[in-house]
């Protein structure tokens, strides 16, 4: 018997007028897995997240969260789910503790455990000493940590993180990654949308690449590399004519062109004779960006 996945979307379609934001999406996330939903802006990641909480209604297909059909039983599902939105919607006039207390009251936490939940949330966000500071006085990084702590205040079984580190500096990003790592270690199911390759590579057990509302590849980072781009790439820099020449010589092999360079993927499989015609290139380790650009033709940050 197959265990019920934490998240299941089957044939999900979401249209906004003429635009199809999510296009026959099939996605399953087993319990305890951190799935990185990787894609550029407009790929349909945020719409997918909203459909999982019942804040957007699918035009076609079925959605289940921990076995609860959404939107029919989305309230039950949301009681087991923590959501961290992309945009900061904390109450700026209130203190950190008050923001967490409101969420602890909205979530199914017994009254006698709410203060403890608030204290735990403040500790998680490393804001215990700022418990009574107004949110409006916090830095961007502190607000982001508080936003995450708010979404986790009821110890959810599933956490949706929508672009958790977008616009943050590297130090704050590292702090957020520690929190997400902790969730993974505790066996919480995480669906994290991101358009940062490094973030997906660093945090996700599994990565789904999304483009134009569809999942176009899915697997562990290593599986995606092995399947699509191999272990190494051979990179050539030069004027446009030179790059066009390299592409012509490498015809039949996967290549990606970015700005002033062209990379031949699966460099390990380039025939010896072709090496002579290509000339000197720079050999580098293949990465997920190669996979993404190869599959979608789009460039991520």
């Amino acid at each position, binding site marked *: 018997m197959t265990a019920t996945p934490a998240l299941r979307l089957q044939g999900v379609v979401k249209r906004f007028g003429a635009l199809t934001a999510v296009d026959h999406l099939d996605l399953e996330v087993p319990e305890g897995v951190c799935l990185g939903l990787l894609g550029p802006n407009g790929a349909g990641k945020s719409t997918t997240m909203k459909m999982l*909480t019942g804040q957007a209604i699918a035009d076609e297909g079925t959605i289940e969260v921990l076995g609860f059909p959404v939107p029919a039983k989305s*309230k039950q599902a949301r009681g087991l*789910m923590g959501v961290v939105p992309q945009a900061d*919607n904390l109450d700026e006039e209130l203190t950190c503790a008050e923001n967490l207390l409101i969420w602890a009251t909205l979530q*199914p936490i017994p009254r006698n455990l709410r203060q403890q939940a608030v204290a735990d949330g403040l500790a998680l966000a490393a804001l215990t000493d700022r418990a009574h500071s107004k949110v409006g006085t916090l830095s961007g990084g502190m607000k982001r940590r508080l936003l995450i702590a708010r*979404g986790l205040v009821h110890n959810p079984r599933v956490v949706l993180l929508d672009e958790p580190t977008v616009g943050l500096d590297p130090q704050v990003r590292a702090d957020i990654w520690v929190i997400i790592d902790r969730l993974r270690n505790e066996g919480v199911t995480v669906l994290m949308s991101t358009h940062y390759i490094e973030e997906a590579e660093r945090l996700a057990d599994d990565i789904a690449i999304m483009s134009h509302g569809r999942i176009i590849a899915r697997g562990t980072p290593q599986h995606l590399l092995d399947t699509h781009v191999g272990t190494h790439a051979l990179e050539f820099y030069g004027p446009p004519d030179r790059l066009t020449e390299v592409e012509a010589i490498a015809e039949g092999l996967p290549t990606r062109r970015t700005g002033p360079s062209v990379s031949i993927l699966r460099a390990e499989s380039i025939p010896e004779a072709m090496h002579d015609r290509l000339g000197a290139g720079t050999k580098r380790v293949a990465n997920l960006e190669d996979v993404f650009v190869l599959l979608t033709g789009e460039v991520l940050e």
Partner: protein
Amino acid sequence: MIDVHAYAGILTREAIMFRRLWVSTTFASIVEPTIYLLAFGLGLGALISNINGYSYIEFVGTGSVATAVLFSSVFTGMFTTYVRRVYQKTYDGLLSTPVDVSEIMTAEGLWIAAKAGVYGCAPLLVAMCFGLPPSWGMLAVPFIGFLTGLGFGFFGQWLSGIVPSIDAFNYVTSALITPLFLVAGTFFPLTQLPQWARTLAQLNPLYHCVQLVRHAAFGWEGWADVGNVAALVIFVIIARYLSIRRLRKRLIG
């Protein structure tokens, strides 16, 4: 089935917010109607001996209750709901917890109504200082304010969901809210108006609020007041339906 937990959560949020912002909220809701009361009551009152058997301060004092209730409910419903939806994205956050649109709007409407019930008493107390005789029936005024405020709170929420931008509230205020509070018997009796305007005023919920407050202060009028309460209850039901329907459309994609 009523989800008490969801209502308690939203009302707790309102209470915490109010604890922080009560001074500015209360100032705006009480001072403006009181200024109207003093300006009309003392200014015009010196020129007018009585209206329908009441002194002008008695007439305006009771009418200003409705003005205070209207201002504190409809504007809160309009502006607060709009700002929370469009700028602060508060509802996007709340809707990721186990609450739904109808619970949010209803709980926020109840909170607005509770405030309106309290704020509505301020002009009455000021009027008492200037000669309005207290009566036992006035104890019903907070409840009348609550019922009226509930309707206008929902009505304001609905308006927040239909305007294309926050600037459009200027049109709403000038073309809708101002006539509502002027043609309700607050500052002058409707008997001065042509018949068609008097008939139209029957559709104005604020008129029924004014009637109830006056009757509470000076003597109930039996079935007429039952009719006034019924009119307000119908207003609450319709406004709540419109509010939830519109905001659900706005918030759920």
